[in-house]
């Protein structure tokens, strides 16, 4: 479970821009609507095909209209589950900026999860990349953090307001470093006081 440190304060939580999820869901919604229209219109024009009687010889009598409805609902169910998975991916892929560190959680497929975090003192560079007409118009893009650690890159994918986020990270980093400096100075002076 994702847990924050004591006194750690969440500054913001970033996800991909909502338009990305909408664009991913659009074909599914189109297919589902087409299927629903098909289920409404189909019974009026339905005729039992000839090959169906051959099929019935093996299985016994079946209602072909209801079979079509069952298959349509089965397909609708699959579309629904794909939409569920995409939405879950959208909500569970998040970048959490706190006053101490940046945390990244990502759902890689259905059975794989990835969580990593970097403390703000390890950040070396923050760069923003806004590319494309839609990204420029809707103000979303990638934000990359270069770190000094093992994970050298930390990528915020297609987040809204990347420039504002960059500003926030820089501010939070400055405050974090100031606090650390103060604390280490205090620890040093406490040591000398002991002597």
């Amino acid at each position, binding site marked *: *479970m*994702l847990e*924050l440190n004591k006194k750690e304060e*969440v500054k913001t*939580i970033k996800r991909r821009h909502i338009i990305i999820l909408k664009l991913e869901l659009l074909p599914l919604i189109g297919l589902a609507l087409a299927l629903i229209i098909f289920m409404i219109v189909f019974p009026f024009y339905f005729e039992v095909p000839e090959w169906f009687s051959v099929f019935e010889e*093996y*299985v*016994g009598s*079946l*209602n072909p209209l*209801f*079979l079509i*409805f*069952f298959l349509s*609902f*089965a397909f*609708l*169910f*699959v579309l*629904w*589950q794909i*939409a*569920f*998975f995409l*939405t*879950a991916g959208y*909500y*569970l892929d*998040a970048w*959490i900026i706190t006053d101490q560190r940046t945390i990244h*959680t990502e*759902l890689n497929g*259905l*059975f794989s*999860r990835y*969580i990593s975090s970097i403390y703000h003192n390890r950040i070396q560079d923050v760069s923003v990349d806004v590319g494309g007409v839609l990204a420029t118009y809707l103000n979303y893009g990638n934000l990359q953090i270069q770190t000094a650690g093992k994970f050298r890159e930390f990528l915020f994918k297609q987040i809204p307001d990347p420039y504002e986020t960059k500003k926030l990270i820089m501010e939070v980093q400055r405050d974090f470093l100031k606090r650390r400096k103060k604390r280490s100075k205090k620890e040093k002076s406490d040591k000398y006081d002991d002597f």
Partner: protein
Amino acid sequence: MRLIIAVILFLPLVTVYLVMRFTLDSHLTRISLPGNFSNANKKIFNIFQTGGAVILLLAFVFLILTLI
């Protein structure tokens, strides 16, 4: 024979439903984001799970109607 076909048709749907439900539930509890964000996520997840169950039930009803 009819029962076997019914099971073959319906079992994959139930499996998909259960796998999606329990796997994403486990992800949701393990990556619970701080504050109100988790509650918002749970609401959306509940809508999807309930919707999935309703569609599955309708599919089941039509499967039974096909076989009767």
